[in-house]
């Protein structure tokens, strides 16, 4: 859906921070993803409109970055690192465990990610871009279930804090 009036206001403020409007492509894609849960084709059009760009240009940027999802995903995004430090500390096993566990759960999307700069916490994962580690299969499940049940407050799908309004 189009930006809500409040988000449209945020979008305009964001654009004003840059000497060249086009710089707001990434921030606005984050904003759209936070609002809709993923980057919709409509959002691409709307952002292009706001920034005087072609939708192709916005889509081209969008598809380059791993954080932008162009199809609906779960409310919780579990990103498991399997890069070089996690590789030798159980990262791949953790990924496999969580992928199996949440394969049929529409609320939870499990993805493999490259190094997320927290190797002292290996094996490490993020739930909506909040770091957790070192963590293994069972405690990771408990953690995700805590988020699902609302016992922990998750960030937005793009990692922004949830504002209490």
């Amino acid at each position, binding site marked *: 859906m189009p930006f809500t009036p409040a988000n449209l206001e945020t979008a305009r403020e964001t654009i004003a921070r840059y000497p060249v409007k086009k710089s707001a492509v990434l921030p606005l894609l984050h904003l759209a993803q936070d609002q809709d849960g993923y980057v919709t084709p409509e959002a691409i059009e709307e952002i292009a409109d706001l920034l005087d760009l072609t939708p192709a240009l916005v889509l081209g940027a969008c598809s380059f*970055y791993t*954080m932008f999802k162009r199809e609906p995903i779960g409310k919780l995004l579990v990103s498991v690192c399997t*890069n070089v430090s996690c590789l030798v500390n159980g990262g791949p096993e953790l990924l496999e465990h969580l992928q199996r566990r949440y394969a049929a759960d529409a609320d939870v999307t499990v993805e493999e990610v490259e190094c997320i700069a927290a*190797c002292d916490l290996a094996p490490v994962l993020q739930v909506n871009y909040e770091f957790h580690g070192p963590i293994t299969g069972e405690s990771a499940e408990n953690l995700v279930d805590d988020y699902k049940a609302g016992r922990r407050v998750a960030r937005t799908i793009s990692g922004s804090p949830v504002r209490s309004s």
Partner: protein
Amino acid sequence: MVAETRIITKFLHERPDDSWTIDAALGNGAYDGLRKALGMTPEDIVAEVTTSGLRGRGGAGFGTGQKWSFLPKDVFPRYLAVNGDEGEPSTFKDHMLVERDPHQIIEGVIITSYAIQCHRAFIYLRGEFGLGAERLGQAIAEAYDKGFIGTNILGSGFDLEIVLHRGAGCYIAGDETGLLSSLEGERAMPRIKPPFPAVQGVYAAPTIVNNIETMSTVPHIINRGGEWYASMGVNRSTGTRIFSVSGNVEQPGNYEVELGMTFRELIYDLAGGIKDGKGLGFFIPGGASSPWLIEEHLDAPLDMDSVQSELKTMLGSGAIMVYDDTVDPVLVAWRIAKFFAHESCGKCTPCREGSGWLEKVLYRMSHGYGRPEDLDLILGFGNNLAPGLSWPPGMTTICQLGPSTMSPAVSLRNYWYDEIKARMTRDAEARGEIPVRSGTDPAVHAAAVEAAV
């Protein structure tokens, strides 16, 4: 007794519960360096930082003061872009600095902006740093409230806006020109240099790109003087650096040490040595891009220049990954190749194609499907990615990602060439395969490999 020398990490260790808040930071003397700097001329600040010998902490290790002095005179506007897109595998120092001492970064950014006379600074922060963005954003808002950022800062007449810009998941946005492309709203594809960013950077205006750790160091140099900073360290590697140590060590973590300490002291005395009493297999001294080292190199000093000239590798981003003697180096080489294949931006053909093929061949090598000629095969085509197969590598691509993809394969050649060849032969024989590739004249191939190895 070997110990850390904590300068930029002192405060965050002292106040683990609130070091990121403005009150705690002010109580620790945050922004005192800014007050002092505003009483100096911009030229004096550049000179002081040049005297300190501070070199960029992002990876390339270029002199910070020298970089600032490359700005063309009287060309405005100009910009500062702070590189907080920490993505080099096994590096996690900027992550800590952003989450736990954002005011130190901001102070460094303001001083640097004043020194280079820019009025808008961007902090490009890795998108995945959720808490980091929250804390840095909060800290910037607090600094505006206190008058450290904005118009007429502390009555000096100097104006500055700081814009926090979140990335969105992309390693190559951490390359300085990739970062500029990304900041302009495009794919983070690196650009050919020259023109260097100091001449034509973001929006084609003169731009200085500095790392988060570099920025965190600047206030201390202003407070205590360039001479003081230069008195620490070794040779041209002055001062302290944060080393991120991880992998199979007892106490993985960030250690801020005076440069010149040895790898052994860092890995064994500070990080507690190899986990579970195992032996050292190998270690990667400067992030995934750097060629590997082994036991015999442990007593080499952490000196950016000698590591490059004598050990043919680099301290890079200051990330030291340690593996015990049970870890398969071919598996690690594959995982790094997979990373680079994923992160190659696709702009330059050798990297776009080469990184993918490298990953495919290393995959089969590390998973029991290797062929006896595989190591020669990757060294052969890899010579088109990192001509010379040494360090520093030759370049066939715009940025360093291309040649860096070959560091693991070159390391396999350096330490385990015969061993790996024998293992691949065993694997092939176990599968009942005849170890010959079709479609290549073996003599031509062998000559090409000979030339490359």
